[in-house]
C-alpha cells in the first residue's frame, strides 16, 4: 500500500482523492436526500448551472499549475455580462458581435495581467486583485442597474436545449421528459477537452508543469519561464472571457453583482480537484470533478432545508480548508518517505 502510494504521481494521487470524494458525496446525496439525485436531469442541471464555473476553473487550474494565481475571473465575468447585455439591448448588436466583445475583454485582461506578472515580476495576487476591482468597478460604470436582455436572437440561443438521448425520466404526470443540457455545457466540455489535451499532450502544456514545479530548474532545462507564465495568464484571461459569455448565456442578464465570489469558487474547485497551490501538480479532469463536488454540496445543502445562504459559504470554505490541509499533509508525508 505504502509502496503504491509512493509510486503514484502527485497529480494522480490527488485526482484519485477527488473522484472518490465526489462519488461518495453523490451516493450520500442519493441515500439521504431521496430519489431527486437519481434523476439524470438533476445531474444535468448541476452541469447547466455550473458550465461557466467549469470554464473559469480550467483557467485557474492552468495558472495554479504554473505556480501563479488569478482572482479577477469573477470580475471579468460580470464585466463581460454587462458589456454584452448593453451591446445587445442598447446598441442593437448581434450575437456574434457580443461573443467578440466577450473574447476581447478576456484577451485584454489576460494580456495586461500576463505582462505585469511574467515580465515585470509583480506578485500575481496584487495584479489580479486590482484586475478584479477594476472589472467590478467598470461594470457599474458601463451600466448601473441590472436588467434582462431582450434581444431575440440571443434569447433564442439562450433557450436552446440540447436533448441528451436516452437519459429522460417520467415526471409526476407520467409523461416522458427528455433530459437536456444548455449550449454552455457543450462549450464547457469542449474547453475541458482542449485544455486536457493542451496540458497533457503538448510541449507547451508540459512546460506549465515544469515552471510550476520548479521555476529555476525549468530555466536550466531550457524552458522560457517568462513566456510560459505569460501564456498561462493569457489563456486564463481568454477562458474568463468565454466563461463570462457562457455565464451570460445562462442568466441572460447584466448586473454588477453577477458571479460574485466566482473566483473563490473557481479556486476552491481547482484545489478540491487536486491542483496544488504551490504549482506543478494538477489535472483538468480533477478540476471538472472539483466543480461537480462543489455544486453537489451546494445542492445537498439547499435540499437539506438549510436554505440560509451562509451555509453554502461555510461548507465551501470548510471543504477548501480540508483539502488544503490534506495537500499539505500528504505532501509532507511523501517527502519524509522519500528522504528515508
Amino acid at each position, binding site marked *: 500500500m505504502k509502496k503504491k502510494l509512493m509510486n503514484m*504521481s502527485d497529480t494522480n494521487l490527488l485526482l484519485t482523492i477527488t473522484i472518490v470524494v465526489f462519488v461518495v458525496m453523490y451516493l450520500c446525496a442519493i441515500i439521504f436526500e431521496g430519489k431527486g439525485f437519481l434523476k439524470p436531469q438533476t445531474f444535468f442541471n448541476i452541469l447547466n448551472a455550473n458550465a461557466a464555473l467549469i470554464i473559469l476553473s480550467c483557467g485557474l487550474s492552468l495558472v495554479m499549475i504554473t505556480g501563479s494565481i488569478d482572482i479577477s475571473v469573477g470580475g471579468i465575468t460580470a464585466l463581460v455580462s454587462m458589456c454584452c447585455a448593453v451591446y445587445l439591448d442598447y446598441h442593437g448588436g448581434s450575437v456574434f458581435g457580443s461573443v467578440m466583445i466577450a473574447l476581447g475583454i478576456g484577451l485584454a485582461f489576460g494580456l495586461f495581467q500576463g505582462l505585469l506578472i511574467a515580465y515585470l515580476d509583480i506578485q500575481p495576487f496584487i495584479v489580479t486583485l486590482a484586475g478584479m476591482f477594476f472589472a467590478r468597478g467598470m461594470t457599474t460604470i458601463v451600466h448601473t442597474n441590472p436588467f434582462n436582455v431582450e434581444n431575440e436572437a440571443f434569447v433564442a440561443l439562450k433557450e436552446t436545449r440540447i436533448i441528451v438521448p436516452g437519459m429522460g425520466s417520467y415526471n409526476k404526470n407520467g409523461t416522458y421528459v427528455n433530459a437536456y443540457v444548455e449550449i454552455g455545457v457543450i462549450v464547457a466540455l469542449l474547453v475541458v477537452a482542449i485544455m486536457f489535451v493542451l496540458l497533457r499532450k503538448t*510541449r507547451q502544456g508540459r512546460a506549465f508543469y*515544469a515552471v510550476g514545479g520548479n521555476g529555476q530548474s525549468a530555466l536550466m*532545462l531550457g524552458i522560457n519561464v517568462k513566456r510560459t507564465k505569460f501564456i498561462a495568464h493569457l489563456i486564463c484571461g481568454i477562458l474568463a472571457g468565454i466563461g463570462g459569455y457562457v455565464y451570460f448565456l445562462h442568466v441572460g442578464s447584466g448586473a454588477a453583482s453577477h458571479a460574485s465570489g466566482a473566483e473563490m469558487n473557481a479556486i476552491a474547485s481547482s484545489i478540491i480537484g487536486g491542483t496544488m497551490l504551490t504549482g506543478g*501538480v494538477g489535472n483538468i479532469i480533477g478540476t471538472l470533478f472539483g466543480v461537480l463536488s462543489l455544486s453537489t454540496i451546494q445542492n445537498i445543502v439547499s435540499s437539506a432545508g438549510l436554505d440560509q445562504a451562509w451555509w453554502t459559504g461555510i461548507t465551501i470554505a470548510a471543504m477548501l480548508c480540508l483539502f488544503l490541509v490534506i495537500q499539505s499533509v500528504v505532501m509532507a508525508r511523501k517527502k519524509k518517505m522519500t528522504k528515508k
Partner: protein
Amino acid sequence: MNENSILEMRNIDKVFPGVRALSGVDFTLRKGEIHALMGENGAGKSTLIKVLTGVYPKDNGEIRMAGHDKPVNIKSPEDAQNIGISTVYQEITLCSNLSVAENIFIGREKSFFTNWKMRNKRAGEILKSLDIPASPTQQLGTCSIAVQQMVAIARAVDMECKILILDEPTSSLDEQEVAKLFKLMRELKQRGVGIIFVTHFLDQVYEVCDRITVLRDGKLVGEYEIKDLPRLMLVSKMLGKELDDMSSIKSDSGGYNGEDKDKILFEAENLSSVEAVNPFDFHIKKGEVNGFTGLLGSGRSESVRAIFGADRVLSGKLKKDGRDIKITKPIDAMKNKIAYLPEDRKEDGIIGDLSVRENIILALQVLEGFFHPFSRAKAEEFADEYIKLLEIKTASTDTPVKSLSGGNQQKVILARWLLTHPDYLILDEPTRGIDVGTKVEIQKLVLKLASEGMGVTFISSETDEMLRTCSRLIVMRDRHVVGELTGEDLNQHKIMSTIAEGESE
C-alpha cells in the same frame, strides 16, 4: 581557433555587485577529452560554467565553438542546449513533480504534441542502458537523490551534445554509480565529446581526466596535462602556495597557555543531524582553538551546524562545562553561551535591510527576550563599542548592513556574537571573500579571544589561516572524520596528504 579544440573561452570577465567573480579567464576544451576544472570554494568554477551555459551573462570576453565562424552568443540555458552544450549541475535541476521520462525529454522536443508512448519507450531504453533503477513513468520526486542525479546525467548524455558539463555530479553517488558514470564518460570521450568535469574528489580527477585547469580567486592559475601535475602540486596550486613556500611555514599557533586549559569546555558524543549524516564525536577545551578542515563538501560546515542545532538534530549527547545539555534549536545553543557565525554570510548571516546597529544587537536582543528591548542610547552604545573594537567601516550605525563591504559585514556579524559574550565561538569561513587586511585582523582576534579563555572552532578553506590559529585540526573527507592533527603534525604537508590520501576511515 585551434583545430583540436571544441570550445575556446577567452578573457572572460564577470562582476557581481561588490565581487569580481571572474577576471580574464581563458579556458580551452579539446575534442574527446575529459577536462577537470579545479579550484577551491569561490575560485570561480561555478561562475565560469554558468557563463558558458547562459545562466549569467558575461561582462567581457568571447566564447568560440567548433563549427561556428563567429563567437557564439549564449543568452539562456535554452540557447546553450540548442548549440550542443548539456549540463549536469551540482544541485539537482530537474522538476520533481514530473515523471522520469519527462525530465529526460522536456525542453528539448521539437514537435508540438508529445508522444508519451514513444517517449516512455525511449526513456526506458536509456535508463536500461545506463542501469538506472527507475521506471520511466515514475514521478522523479519519489526517486532517491542518487537516482535523480543519474537521471540528470542520462538527460545530458542523451542530448547528442558536443560538450558535456558535469558540475560535481558525484557528490551524491555511491562507488558503483560513480563507476558507471566513469564508464559512460569514457564512451562519450571515444565519440569525440568534450567533457568538463568539476569535482572535489581528487581520486576521481586522476582516475578519468586528461587535463586540468586550475582557477583561484576568479583568475586562471594554469592548464596542465594530468601527468605533469602530481596530487600534492595540484592541491598547492588550488590553495595558492608554492610547494617550497608551504613546507617552510611553521605553525605559530599553540601560543596560548591558560591556567585551566585542560578543562573540557564542550563535548559532543555521537552527534548527527539531517545534514551531517555520519555521527561524530567532538570536544573542545577552554581557551583552545581547533578547526575542521577538508575540501568543499567534506562536511565541515554541516558538523558545526549540528553543534549549534541549526539543522534538525538526529542523535547525540552534549555536555558543556561537564553538565548535560540539550540543543535542538539555535536558541538552546545561545542560552548555553555558544555562538555561531554561519558560512553563508548573505543567506544565513546578515539581515540585509536592517541597520548596522540592529544587526549588532540582534542576537543579544533575542537572548534578552521579547519584553526587554534596549533603549536607543544603549543600543547605540553597544554598536559604537563594537564598531570601534572591530574597526568596522560604516558611515553611521543607521546604515543598512547590506551596503557595507563583505569584510565589514562579516565584522558586524562577529560583533553580534561577541556582544552575547559566548564561552564557545564557532566561526565557519569567517574570512571568505574579504580583503587580506581584514583576514589577518580576524585571525588575531580569534587568538586574542582564546587567550581570554574562550573556546573557538575555526573553519577556513585557506589552510595557512588554520595553521596560524588552530592548535588542533580535525580533517574531514567525504563527510567522515579521517584524521586529527596536533603538534608536530600541524603543517601544510601533513594536512594535504591527509586530505589527498586520507589516513583511514
